[in-house]
Structure formats: structure tokens, C-alpha cells
């Protein structure tokens, strides 16, 4: 049985008490207040948003979409498929090149935002989440290289174990354990990246793009 809020009329003559706001209503009002649809999907932008540098963020999202789509197919068909079948090999290649494009676009986006000082005017958290996405993406790609099940995977694992063990991480994150690396690669890490990317986009759209750097404005947060 759901939680309901009474909407019955008060007795005649009684003072009308203000109806308490439900959690649902509070959440809806907060979303409306902080992220109205015309901010989430604006059809107008400041005139200086005409630079190609703004495109890097969008193409990064596009590359991530291709990474996820090709990765879902690979995960569904299973690890042997991309070695034994030409179609599987093609989807593995699609995944591989999508990842390369994703990182190229993300690094360009990162450098672009750095030189635009994109963290100004209350956008520091957006920048920090972006850097976190970059870090988790590197970890996701690393587990992907370990999950390829080829010669490079073997030697990357043998090399990397020393770094992980030396830092104490290897006791819990065993790069020689294919099952653990594959599970992290196809589930936990992509979910983390996707969640943070959504948060990053919402934060960008909530605040809008930052204004250009002015001589008197500096590049501070």
C-alpha cells in the first residue's frame, strides 16, 4: 500500500490549515527550481558558445555512447565470441576504437576546459567531477585491457601486479584474476562512469556555460 496524503476538505467553518508538502512534491519543486527543462535542454546559448572547443564535451558523450553500446553487445555474447567469430572480432574492434576516440575527445575537453578556466563562478565541483570521471575511465580502460584475453593482457597483468601490490591495492584488486577484472570492467566501473557523466552534465546545464575570462575576472573559482 502506498503512502498517501489526505486531500479531504476541512470541516465547514474550521480554519483551513496549510497542507504539508509531501516528499514527492518537495523533490519535484526542487528539480523545477534548480533544473527547469529550458535549462536542461536550452535552445539558446550565449553568443560566445560558438567555438569548436565546446564540441569536445559533446563528442566525448557520443564516444561514450558507442563504447557502451559496443560493450553491451560484447558482454551479452561473452568473452569467447570476440576471439572465435569474425562478427565478434568486429564488435571488439568497434569497442576498441570507440575507447580510443573517447579518450582523445575527453583529453581535448579537459585541456579546453582548463584553458577556459571552466571552474569559475561556482563550477569547481563540476571540474572535480570531470577529473574523477577521467580517473575512473582510466581504471575502466585498464580493466578492459586486462580482459582482452590476449598476449598483451597477460603481460600488462604481470607488469601491473607489482604496482598494485607495492601500493597495497593488489591485496584486494588482483589484476591476475580475470573474473574480478572482467566483472569490474563490464559492470561496476561503467556504472560509475555513466552516473558521474550524468551528474557532470546536469551540473553543467544547471549553471550554464561559464563566461569568458576577463582581465579583471581572473581564473579563480
Amino acid at each position, binding site marked *: 500500500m502506498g503512502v498517501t496524503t489526505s486531500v479531504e476538505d476541512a470541516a465547514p467553518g474550521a480554519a483551513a490549515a496549510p497542507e504539508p508538502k509531501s516528499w514527492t512534491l518537495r523533490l519535484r519543486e526542487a528539480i523545477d527550481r534548480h533544473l527547469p527543462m529550458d535549462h536542461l535542454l*536550452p*535552445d*539558446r*546559448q*550565449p*553568443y560566445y*558558445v560558438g*567555438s569548436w572547443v565546446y564540441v569536445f564535451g*559533446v*563528442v566525448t558523450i*557520443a564516444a561514450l555512447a*558507442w563504447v557502451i553500446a559496443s560493450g553491451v553487445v560484447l558482454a551479452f555474447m561473452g568473452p569467447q565470441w*570476440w*576471439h572465435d567469430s569474425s562478427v565478434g*572480432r568486429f*564488435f*571488439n*574492434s*568497434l569497442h*576498441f576504437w*570507440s575507447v*580510443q*576516440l573517447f*579518450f582523445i575527445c575527453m583529453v581535448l575537453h579537459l585541456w579546453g576546459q*582548463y*584553458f*577556459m578556466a571552466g*571552474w*569559475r*563562478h561556482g*563550477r569547481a565541483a563540476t*571540474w572535480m567531477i570531470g*577529473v*574523477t570521471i577521467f580517473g575512473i575511465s582510466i581504471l575502466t580502460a585498464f580493466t578492459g585491457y586486462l580482459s*582482452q584475453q*590476449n*598476449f*598483451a593482457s*597477460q*603481460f600488462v597483468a*604481470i607488469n*601491473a601486479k607489482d604496482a598494485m*601490490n*607495492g*601500493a*597495497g*591495492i593488489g*591485496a584486494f584488486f*588482483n589484476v*591476475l584474476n*580475470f*573474473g*574480478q577484472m572482467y566483472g569490474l570492467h563490464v559492470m561496476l566501473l561503467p556504472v560509475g562512469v555513466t552516473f558521474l557523466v550524468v551528474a557532470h552534465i546536469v551540473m553543467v546545464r544547471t*549553471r550554464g556555460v561559464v*563566461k*569568458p*575570462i*576577463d582581465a579583471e*575576472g581572473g581564473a579563480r*573559482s
Partner: protein
Amino acid sequence: MKSMGATQEEYYRGVRMERYDLVKELVIALGAIGVLALIGAAIFSSPDVAPVTIATWSQSDPVDFVTTAANELAGSTTSAGYGAPYNSVGPGQAWGPIAPQSWFGVRIPIDSANAFVIQPLQRASFSNTALGSALGTWQSATPAQQTAWLDAYSKALSSATVSNGTVAVASGDYGPVPVMMSNLLGVAQAGGLDGLLTINGRFYQTDYTQPLLFMGDGTYLAGLAQQANLTGSQWGMMNETGEYPGQTWLWLYTMWYQVFPFNSPGGFIGLNASNADLGIIILMTLLTAALALVPFIPILRDIPRWIPIHRLIWRSYYAKGKATPAARAT
């Protein structure tokens, strides 16, 4: 510190707004990236050099295989003296009081001699009386006797010959070691050791810790990696087999292994080649934190203002006569 207005409307007040189609831009980006990825996949495919198995190792380089197995018995391999998380033989990496490798102890216990040699031989000795007898002799011998046999056998291996896949050494007092090694080599060449090192009493397996550690102790795999530019001194973590791009985004992490103090035996303030992994992980953690905290770090946050790349990015804004006075208000 300047803050944004309470709303986007306040923040952009006075700024000329123009039509901009975000959804169309995203759809075009999806198409463009898709075309590039499809072209890459269709023309260049992807790296898939077959992995090395213990069977291929023992068939291709039986002397290296037998030498490695003998060294496992002697406890002189990398994995035998590794320390945490595999065993407590080695101290592990530390930088002063910072020793996370030993803090978490032995969480993936592996006794190299038993796991890679004795236990597989015990399983293989079923219905093999000669091997069973050799194992009995080995296990009833004193450690001093075992060491003497292994020392003599290891020296003889340096001039071993290979005939029909078997390893022959000059006559000597090696005890049961030659019988044990020839049987282990036979099992390995038949592909049995690949399975024996992953079974652990269970049917389904996804953990390749033992075979990878064992192969990593030999020189065969490392030799192939050297040819493929995958070793640590070749920036291997960011490379791939063939001409394919690897994890190029790890260039900074990989670079530290090539420079002082991490490539030096003596090092600096206790950081050197022997604890390079720990030192570099600490350094990269600090650098990543600094990147995340750029908005709050003087100089780093001011560089974009000093280097006028932003004037190229926002050319229309900085172009004289194109921006209204109101538009410049921040």
C-alpha cells in the same frame, strides 16, 4: 572570488543569446564518432595476439621451463620471494614507515614450490610409479640434500640440450630432480599444467593468478614482451602488440619509471628502483588530486589567464566591436 548569479537568468543578464541546437549537435556527434569507430574497426581491426600458454612455453623453450621449475623448488624465483600478498618471504615495498604492501598481509597465499611443481606432480603421479617414487625420495630428503641436488642440477641446466622436446643434462648427482622435471615438462607440454594450476578443486575457473605468476618467473614470456615493446623499461604499460595504440593516457604514469629517482638503485630521499611502484603510485595520486583541486591552487588556476589560449577560444567575445559593454560584465 566571483560567484554566479542566483539563477542562470541573472548570470547571463546582458549577454546576447543566440539559437543553439544541442540535440542536433549530439546527433551529429554520434554519427561522426560512429563513422570514425566503424572505419577504425573495418580497416584496422583490433589487437588479438594469442596468449601464451604453459604448453606453448614448455614446447618452445623447454630449458627455460625446466630452469624456472627448478628455481621454484629452490625458492629463488620472483614469486617465491615476493612477499605480500602471496607469501611472507619478502619484505615488500616500503618508503620509510609507508609500507601498504605488508600492511594487508598475505591475502592470496601461494607457495610457489608446492603450487607450481609439487602439487601438479602429485596429481600427475597417479598410476605413475616412477614419479611417485621420485616424489617420495624428494619429500623424505633433508633440506640440505634437496639444495645440493638443485644446485647441481641448475648448474647442469646451463649446458642442457634439447632433443625431441626433452631436456638432457650431463650425468651427475641430482637425486630425483631429473625424473620430477621431465614429468613436469611432459605434463606441461601436453597442456595439463595449464589446467592443474587453475583448478583449485573447483569446476569453473576465472582466476589465472598461479599460471601467470609461474610464467612471469621464466624468461620466455618476458622475451616475447620485449619483442612487443611491452616491458616496463619500454614504456610497456601504454603500449600494445603490433601497431595498435595502447593505453596512451598512461604516458605520465609510465614516464616516471624511466626517470630519476625511480630508475636509480640509489635514488633520492629513500625513493629508488626497488620501491618505484609505491613511489610512483603515491606521486600519481598526489598529481591526480592536484588536478582535481586546480580551482583552489594558486598559480595552477591562474595559468589559463596568463596563457591567452582563451582569447583564441572566445575570439568573438574578445573581438573589438563585437561584444556589447553589457556582455562583458561578469
